[in-house]
């Protein structure tokens, strides 16, 4: 049934006018899509190829809690923490002595089955060879990196070839070339603010 009424035609013409969502719409959709937990909708065999990595996260289970107890005793704690004082005990929030002074950020990944883990990111030209991580107890890999204030995309490189995002960190937006990255924001030492990692 076609309606030749000119009013209806005018209404339809107005509603048919092309329109686009505001800038950033695509980015918002892709950010939401990336936040959908893997392996959806990858096929089962692709998921099975993923390394068995777990995140150190506040929601971790009993096994992780046990690891945390070990780490706390050894002076390492949490996914990323601020500067340490001379005694080796970690400070929860560091205060930089001067603006733009670097803060030390500790990156941690639990990857018991990995042979090597390295850190690659904006702070080292995504080299992967510059920041090898050290294996501590129970398959926990760490590295301490001094970073000047700023925002850095990064990822862990497992066994020299597989990029793994930090599940406990915010996702990087923008094109990650099909392999997800994470973001760390390092604050400045402005009075009233906390330095160290955020």
């Amino acid at each position, binding site marked *: *049934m076609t*309606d030749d*009424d000119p*009013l*209806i035609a005018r*209404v*339809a013409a*107005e*509603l*048919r*006018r*092309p*329109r*686009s*969502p*505001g800038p950033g*719409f*695509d980015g*918002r*959709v*892709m950010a*939401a*899509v*990336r936040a*959908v937990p893997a392996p*959806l*909708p*990858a*096929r089962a065999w*692709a998921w099975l190829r993923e390394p068995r990595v777990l995140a150190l996260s506040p929601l971790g289970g009993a096994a992780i809690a046990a690891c945390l107890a070990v780490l706390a005793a050894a002076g390492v704690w949490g996914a990323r923490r601020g500067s340490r004082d001379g005694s080796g005990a970690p400070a929860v929030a560091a205060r930089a002595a001067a603006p733009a002074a670097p803060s030390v950020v500790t990156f941690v990944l639990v990857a018991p089955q990995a042979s090597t883990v390295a850190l690659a990111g904006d702070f080292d030209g995504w080299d992967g060879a510059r920041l090898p991580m050290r294996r501590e107890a129970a398959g926990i890999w760490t590295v301490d990196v001094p970073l000047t204030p700023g925002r850095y995309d990064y990822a862990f490189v497992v066994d020299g070839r597989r990029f793994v995002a930090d599940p406990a960190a915010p996702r990087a937006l923008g*094109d*990650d*070339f*099909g392999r997800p990255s994470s973001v760390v924001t390092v604050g400045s030492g402005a009075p009233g603010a906390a330095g160290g990692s955020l």
Partner: protein
Amino acid sequence: MIEDEPDGALVRRVLDGDLEAFAGLVARHRDRGLRFAASMLGDAAEAEEALQDAFVRAYRSLRSCREPDRFGAWLLQILVNRCRTRAARFQRRNRQFVRDDAALERAAAPAGRSREWREEIERALARLDPLQREAFVLKHVEGLEYEEMTRLTGARVPALKMRVKRACDRLRVLLGEESGRRDR
């Protein structure tokens, strides 16, 4: 380049794990999706949220898209349902932070007389029965055939034709009244 690949190829890429290929589908189908959602919901921000929601749901259930080459039609089906749900529970967002809202909205609001006509239409559409509005938009804005509309809405063709007719009748009354009140 992703822009040249047909929908089916992009869908298969995403299912193989190339998440970023989904961005190509978004870019290709978002304008039409927004046109539909804006016609249905009236509010541009609501329409964008409904559309974003639809895309994410499409991604989550991409495996169940039976005709990857017709991703657009499948997305529209999801969007029809999103718009129905939103219209049913559409409520004003918390206006507690009015000052900030005003600052944010100022940047995006277009100006001009065309906006008045658009607003008249949206007021009139808002006063239609939701199913009539939906049938009208699918037929006259999206230009779909009744067979396609049956697949999207689950209603039979005679019912759809009746809805479209009633929508047109009502719009003639509402917009005829309104335009009678002002000089054009």
